[in-house]
């Protein structure tokens, strides 16, 4: 009978349920790195959803990196509250010389304190290492469950006490815990063959529905003095990943770590990597990304856009995409010949006083694809880029969602406070 159960698991259980439910319920199809290898969808605590890197607008001598995990946290999903996995390792990498290998590795592990067990105990202790050496430690705030929970924990103002958990170590500010999902996109329409809700348009006239509205994620945010990461070219590459422990049948102690998820440039996994290679891509390091270059040359999305909207997007020889996503924007974020999926940022470009959601495409060089700010509309930018924007072929494509449902903070960690389960904003907006 045990067999039966295992069979069910592989046949249709976790893996496929998670894969499928994503097609209907926003609860499991959230931020940009979502509909990936089924075995990733099944493991939300290891799932990198989005990565951001930008010069801090209020502290321009610092770089802020925001890395998010756990897609589609429903604030009112109790009793299954969300926490970082206690057996995973969460990593943020900085490559300072363009070789696709990390020069700075920030790794985080989380533990839920044992003690009187009650559901909803979401405060976790974290310890972090820098390049493998003990570096910092702290606590996450509790999830934003509701006023009674907070009263129990003697929390008067959720955000004040959440920000009180920020740790400062060697000039770096560190935050880890639940936040609003800053990503915005019409996920439902995108996965319905990049459909656009407003008839007669190519989608840049609004009318989209933000499927991430009202959902939370778990964030690790770092604010690092630029002096700690700067290079002669001022351009660095950033990516994040999650590792899980490797075990074997005939052994007791685990043998090391295996990377199960990663994220550099947004939507690469979704838009570029073929289904059958998503597992492989997720466990590959950027230094070994050359094997995927051919898929950037012939993006599937270009063919899909042509079929749907007859936008005449070039479908082959896309060295423009290879350059921007793989080696950097020429003269702006170019890091050398090594093809690697990293979010590249030129630290010499100051923050924009008036950021434009279309970033570099709108002449705002302080935004995506020079790094990525929370408000950069990467879905529209990537649709237009795939349609051939950088080759002079400008088509006003978009998903019709141009901003987040709640304002971002103007200070670290910039990501908005998490939606509260008790208030459940989705219940009123759905």
């Amino acid at each position, binding site marked *: 009978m045990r067999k039966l159960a295992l*069979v069910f698991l592989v*046949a*249709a259980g*976790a893996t*496929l*349920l998670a894969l499928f*439910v994503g097609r209907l319920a926003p609860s499991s199809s959230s931020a940009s790195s979502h509909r990936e290898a089924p075995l990733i969808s099944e493991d939300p605590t290891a799932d990198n959803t989005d990565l951001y890197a930008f010069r801090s607008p209020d502290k321009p001598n610092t770089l802020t990196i925001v890395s998010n995990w756990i897609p589609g946290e429903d604030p009112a999903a109790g009793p299954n509250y969300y926490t970082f996995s206690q057996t995973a390792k969460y990593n943020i990498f900085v490559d300072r010389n363009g070789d696709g290998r990390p020069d700075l590795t920030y790794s985080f592990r989380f533990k839920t304190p044992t003690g009187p067990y009650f559901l909803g105990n979401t405060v976790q202790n974290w310890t972090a290492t820098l390049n493998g050496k003990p570096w910092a430690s702290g606590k996450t705030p509790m999830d934003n469950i509701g006023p009674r929970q907070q009263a129990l924990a003697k929390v008067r103002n959720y955000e004040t006490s959440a920000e009180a958990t920020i740790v400062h170590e060697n000039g770096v500010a560190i935050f880890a815990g639940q936040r609003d999902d800053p990503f915005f996109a019409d996920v439902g329409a995108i996965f319905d063959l990049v459909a656009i809700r407003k008839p007669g348009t190519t989608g840049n006239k609004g009318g989209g529905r933000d499927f991430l509205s009202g959902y939370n994620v778990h964030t690790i945010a770092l604010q690092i003095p630029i002096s700690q990461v700067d290079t002669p070219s001022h351009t660095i590459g950033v990516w994040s990943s999650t590792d*899980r*422990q490797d075990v074997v049948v005939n052994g007791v102690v685990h043998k090391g770590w295996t990377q199960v998820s990663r994220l550099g440039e947004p939507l690469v996994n979704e838009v570029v990597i073929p289904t059958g290679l998503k*597992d492989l891509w997720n466990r590959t390091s950027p230094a070994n990304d050359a094997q995927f270059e051919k898929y950037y040359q012939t993006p599937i999305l270009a063919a899909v856009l042509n079929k749907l909207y007859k936008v005449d997007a070039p479908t082959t020889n896309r060295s423009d995409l290879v350059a921007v996503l793989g080696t950097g924007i020429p003269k702006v974020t170019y890091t050398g010949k090594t093809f690697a999926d990293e979010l590249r940022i030129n630290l010499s470009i100051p923050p924009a006083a008036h950021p434009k959601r279309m970033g570099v495409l709108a002449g705002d060089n302080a935004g995506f694809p020079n790094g990525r700010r929370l408000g950069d509309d990467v879905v529209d930018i990537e649709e237009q880029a795939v349609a051939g924007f950088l080759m002079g072929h400008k088509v006003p494509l978009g998903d019709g969602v141009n901003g987040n449902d709640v304002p971002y903070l103007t200070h670290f960690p910039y990501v908005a406070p998490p939606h509260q389960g008790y208030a459940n904003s989705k219940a009123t907006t759905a």
Partner: protein
Amino acid sequence: MPNKLLIGLAVLLAAGFAAFLGGVFVEPPAQAPSALAASQSAEDFKAGFALDASTARLVESLQATLEANPKDEHSWALLGLAYQQRARETGDPSYYTKSGGALDRALRLDSSDSLVYSGLGSLALSRHRFALALKLGRQAHALSPTIARNYGVIGDAEIELGRYRSAFRDFDTMTRLQPSLSAYARVSYGRELIGHTAAAITAMKLALDAATDTAEPAAWTRVQLGKLYFNHGRYRAAEREFLLANETFPNYAYALDALATTEAALGRLRRAVGYERRAVDLIPLPQYVATLGDLYRVAGRPLLARRQYALIGAIERLLRANGVRVDLEIAQFDVDHGLRLTHALALARIGQRQRPSIDGDDVLAWALTRNGRCGAALHYSQLALRLGTQDAVKFFHRGMIDRCLGRHAAGRAWFRRALALNPRFSLLWAPVARRYAA
């Protein structure tokens, strides 16, 4: 859906399948449908149970997509897989037939989609066609060699075919490629099979941690963890996991069935019956129905017990009609309950040939024993224990063989070993083991 299934069964029974059961039961089996019908409350019909309503919605949406575009290969593949999830949620095996139909359509449209082969492979696993599953898993792997999941399909098939060495290697590879709930749960199972219980618990806890935030998989994993505790007589620890599983994912039949067994082990028969009835109402799997019958029998309600037992044959017909092989399960049920022993032995032989695993070997050993062929049984019992699995039921069967062969001291040692491991390993047989161990 289970209600529909039960009604289907009632109709089948009334339509004459009852004849198939002829002679086994004291009561005329024709009474079974009326008993069933009476047990259907209006509330049951309203409930419209589904573990996850979204799967039903997914099926509808995929059907609509395919109506508009019948050549959409990917949607056929997904529909095939969604039907398998529905089978899991409802216990209705007709979804296997539907799944096979959808996957075959997908295959005709595109014979190079690895997902279709792994879907057909998992369907073959569900139907207990393990040699076929192995072939399909390998085809899926050949098409997408870097996907971790295909190693799960291949390894699961190898386990049931008794090819443990390669199965464990495949589970190891699966984990090395992508540690996840699916991989950890398999590593845990491998460790359990070779008798490394503490290590199995460790791996299942890793699976559980990888499942946090996903309700049904988390509940499933908790149930497996609880069963590891149960199999070692740690009933309180097991109960805690089962209760948490049912809290994580309310009305979870797998948890309710496990709770029933645990409550019975803790001597709370009435609560056990309550849990098992809920499990059977949700998903009428043959093993749940058999357990409910056993609980009634132990509780001194032979009439109710027989009514449950009567259902097994009908469920079996329904499973067979949908391509599921159940020879081994039926043989085990019949042998345990002293029914049609010659026939059961023939079934066990067929079952063991299809499934030369330690479970196949054990059921055949037990069937031979109950047919008085204890010398032949010993050989299969030795095979069943070849991995060093800590399984009280298999220890008990070995004790019965030794006893039958006149090796009373050896028999007593096995009975004691079974009871030391899990004193309440079986409703029906643990008391027998206690008697003979003395």
